[in-house]
């Protein structure tokens, strides 16, 4: 999707606040915890990301990171019907539930440890590309969710790793768990940017087979 999330190479953002902390406000920590502790049933990682990138672009670029997560958590649960817009605005449940059990710090640690998720899948299709192959990425933006950034669209690179098949993000954003071969593709800076800082520098991206063609 050609949306505000596709920031790689975009200009005029100015200097990086290199000494910024992990959080500026207590609400940021609380939102981080809320996102991890309260999942909306059926939401895939890619639907979470895709939903986030459909925020109004001016808002996406203006508000702090965890404010986006807050809006997204609400949006995802309004979409499923789990919350209403009014509940989100008022913070009051139409139908209160039984209080949830308290998770101790140890419980939280156990939960956190369980969050590692294996996205690899066995598929019955041989990989189209191998180490060292030259490839070219799709030139035109893909409808819906995609993890091919525009700065690397239509560019030539080289396969430097094959990771087997992984759940395909574009499909995952539609609730479809089909998988495609995943590769790391290395691009020379000069093949991405007309004004590269140094032509020998490279950028590596993890890209699924449907984004790639032989070059």
């Amino acid at each position, binding site marked *: 999707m050609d949306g505000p999330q596709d920031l790689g190479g975009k200009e005029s953002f100015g200097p990086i*606040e290199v000494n910024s902390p992990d959080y500026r406000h207590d609400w940021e920590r609380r939102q981080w915890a809320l996102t991890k502790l309260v999942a909306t049933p059926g939401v895939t990682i890619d639907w979470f990301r895709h939903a986030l990138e459909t925020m109004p672009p001016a808002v996406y670029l203006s508000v702090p990171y965890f404010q986006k997560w807050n809006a997204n958590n609400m949006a995802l649960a309004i979409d499923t019907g789990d919350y209403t817009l009014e509940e989100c605005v008022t913070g009051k449940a139409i139908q209160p539930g039984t209080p949830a059990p*308290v998770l101790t710090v140890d419980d939280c640690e156990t939960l956190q440890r369980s969050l590692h998720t294996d996205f690899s899948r066995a598929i019955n299709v041989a990989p189209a590309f191998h180490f060292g192959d030259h490839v070219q990425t799709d030139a035109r933006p893909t409808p819906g969710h995609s993890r091919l950034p525009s700065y690397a669209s239509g560019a030539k690179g080289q396969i430097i790793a094959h990771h087997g098949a992984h759940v395909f993000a574009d499909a995952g954003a539609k609730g479809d768990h089909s998988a495609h071969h995943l590769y790391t593709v290395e691009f020379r800076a000069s093949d991405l940017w007309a004004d590269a800082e140094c032509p020998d520098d490279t950028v590596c991206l993890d890209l699924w087979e449907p984004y790639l063609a032989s070059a």
Partner: protein
Amino acid sequence: MPSFDTKKIEQIHRDLHTHLPSDPALRVKALESLVVEKGLVAQESIDNWIELYAERIGPKRGAEVIARAWTDPAYYDRLINDAGQAVKDFGFEGHATEHTKAVQNTSQTHNLVVCTLCSCYPFSLLGMSPIWYRSAAYRARAVKEPRAVLAEFGVTLPDGVKTRVWDSTAELRYLVIPERPKGTEGWSADQLAAIITRDSMIGTQRELAI
């Protein structure tokens, strides 16, 4: 179940933008009250999750992994070959570590990690990401002008060192292994872990101070 419908979720986001207060603290408070009242989470669990990240999960985990690799060649190989498995030795597996990939700095290469499309990060190994890592400026610039970005962090690469930027576009997460500083021969893993910083494991720092 989610609708998986782009137009629908766009409209919900616009509605939320129109109706929610502009102060994010109020928005988070509203969401917290709502989910507590619905019985989806207890307020104390939120406090405890925050404590977990404040006390137990942070860059010291990544430092411990790298210090061991520096002092244990067999572990180093395992870390390079399958970091997702190797970190399980420490019980450090968790959020976004399954497909961790460790990439080593050398005298010829400097590695830098970014996620241009969102802000993916190996949380379970490095804790919460710094605000700059999640900023539009870092996401936009790291891939295009890594040297200018490094300069803002005070890093000037020696001649002949090329940059290799890793944009975390899929579910692989990257951990930079900095070069082990000269003068640390014979140090214990604990001593070494103490000098390994968060930024050196993201790649916005190159030389470790000893």
